[in-house]
């Protein structure tokens, strides 16, 4: 392992590590509030237009949605494994697992792109020739606005996560981290899990309404 020195404001690497962990948790708190706005809108509008939201949600592609959920959950598992691997000083395995997670992230984005493309052809994108049965048009418009805003924001986060994992994986492969100092691995893993968690919530809100019952 390459020798690491703490940055000048810290007394030792242990302190630097603790600080990185606290920093990412505070950052994630900010992120939760960031996504809170659209979730509030969704809640209010779904309450107001329950039928319209159900009708609109039935037009989403549950197959791709479910596959993507599975893919992202798997990537999260790999990332969690990586944080264990680095504690055993295995930088190569860490890099490999991060690389696999990056691959899954790219697959997710590819599938998401296909889904968007299908939705474009089905005229489901608000502002781009949106067409829907007249009775539920307004509600569907609100639903798909929410859908596109949140999934695009999620995709942007995912892209940032992918870049982050690639950078950290390269460092890990070079042996920069180990049992003693592994905060960057932990921090990027936590960010990745957050992206995954946001998706789990979005999945339930976007793909599941209107799928069961009458």
């Amino acid at each position, binding site marked *: 392992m390459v020798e690491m020195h703490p*940055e*000048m*404001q*810290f*007394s030792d690497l242990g*302190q630097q590590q*603790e*600080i990185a962990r*606290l*920093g990412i948790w*505070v*950052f994630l*708190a*900010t*992120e939760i*509030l*960031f*996504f*809170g*706005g*659209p979730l*509030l*809108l969704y809640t*209010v*509008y779904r309450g*107001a*237009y329950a039928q319209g939201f159900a009708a609109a949600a039935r037009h989403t592609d549950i197959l791709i949605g479910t596959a993507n959920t599975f893919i992202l959950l798997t990537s999260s598992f790999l990332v969690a494994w990586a944080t264990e691997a680095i504690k055993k000083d295995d930088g190569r395995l860490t890099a490999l697992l991060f690389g696999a997670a990056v691959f899954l992230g790219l697959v997710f984005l590819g599938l998401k792109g296909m889904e968007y493309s299908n939705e474009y052809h089905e005229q489901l994108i*608000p*502002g781009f020739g949106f067409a829907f049965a007249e009775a539920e048009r*307004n*509600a569907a*418009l*609100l639903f798909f*606005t929410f859908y596109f*805003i949140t999934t695009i924001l999620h995709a942007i986060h995912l892209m940032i996560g992918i870049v982050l994992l690639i950078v950290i994986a390269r460092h890990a492969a070079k042996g920069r981290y180990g049992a003693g100092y592994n905060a960057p691995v932990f921090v990027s893993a936590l960010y990745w899990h957050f992206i995954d968690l946001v998706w789990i919530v979005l999945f339930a809100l976007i793909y599941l309404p209107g799928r069961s019952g009458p």
Partner: protein
Amino acid sequence: MNAHAPVNYLTTDYRLSSWFTTTDHKRIAILYFATITLFFFIGGMAATIIRLELATPAGDLVTSDVYNRLFTIHGIVMVWLFLVPSIPTTLGNFLVPLMIGARDLAFPKLNLLSWYLFVAGGACVLYALFVGGLDTGWTFYTPFSSTYSKGNVFVAVLGIFIAGLSSILTGLNFIVTIHRLRAPGLTWFRLPLFIWAIYATAIILVLATPVLAMTLLLMTLEREFGVPIFDPARGGDPLLFQHLFWFYSHPAVYIMILPGMGVVSELIPCFSRKPIFGYKFVAWSAISIAIVGFLVWGHHMFVSGQSVFAGVVFSLMSYLVAVPSAIKVFNWTATLHGGWIKLDSPMLYALGFIGLFTIGGLSGLFLACLAYDVYVTDTYFVVAHFHYIMVGATVTAYFGGLHFWWPKITGRLYPEYWARAAAIVIFFGFNLTFFPQFILGVLGMPRRYHVYPAEFQVWNVLSSGGAFVLAIGYLMPLIYLSWSIFWGKRASANPWAATGLEWQTLSPPPKYNFAVTPTVVREPYCYTPEALPQNG
């Protein structure tokens, strides 16, 4: 420069590039000082034209459209580019590591990034305000902002979004630093109250700002892509915009006032030569203001059409904010009682703060009262109230803190006579400007109009005259403080004989703050009457 002076953070490197690549929290604080001072005078100039226009009942100086732009410039620049960053990014950046005995903030590079983001955001906002213009008011209410306004909404919102990101990162930096980088022995209840205030502020910055960012993003998406989000014509609800906006913007008031309270909590004990009265109450009241502040946003919406039940609940919650605020005022006053009070310029600002904050706070109770608020909504009563808090209190505290820590920051003493004169001019100028506005509001003059009935003129003339005095008061420190940087007497390490770790190091401090990490063994504010300050 004195050849014998030890190398300090200002003299380690004279190249300009060393300033723009610095990660030293003290230098970054100076960068912020320069930036927000610029914004303060831009916002101030807009206010000057507004007050000139309002000196006569007719709309004779500017057109309605220009007037709309002026109060928008004034509001946006003052709120987001001056008041929100004011004390935290300058005094906070400079003092947090010094007060807790650290070498720097937890994330120095992030700190520099915050400044660059702030400058980028500010540049976007200025571009939008001066090229294309903006007439939405600082509140951006939909559907006007999203549908009808012809102004440059997108760029302005982009700027505020970026500046918001800067705020969040600053808040994050402070929270982590205060948690993890305190010197040995510096327990939570030995922290200076300024640190408690900055900590409470940082929590609000981190939890409220993202909501503003998202809200403005949604509004501008509606505007640019025609998607319905808040559009009532297509099933949306414009009230949701107001809820989300005030969910940030009410706590933002506490982002502005809490650091001011923190400054005053430092000044009062020092110039009374007494420990602060009820330390724990003052500390916890900062935290409780931050928490309760999240639950009162609906009092901005009493006449918006939200349910009466919501109005009643928000009204009650708003009264609750008065409790921790009053605890602070009473504790400061109790600290004064029996103290050896020395009326140096920082103390004059601190006493001015207490007076102005009390008036602002008490008029806030009028507005928290549902029935009375309906009567004065959107009148000058509201304008006067929030200026008493945001200008009367916050800016006064900012100046008080600036004078108190000026010797530490620059290593120079300013002319005390002029500093006292400025404090008094500002106090009188401020009251003359804004007290008549309470009366105007009760008489029924609405805000945001530049033409008004002739019977309101006398109060408006008083107010405009006061604004002139206030402008002189604000220009005075600019002159004598700038003068002192070059020709002021050199300051000792501790010219006020103050407690606090920041006074134990040199003035100005060396690059890494402390030669040896200090160990804290005592409570804060161990002031005694015997050790009176030595300077004149």
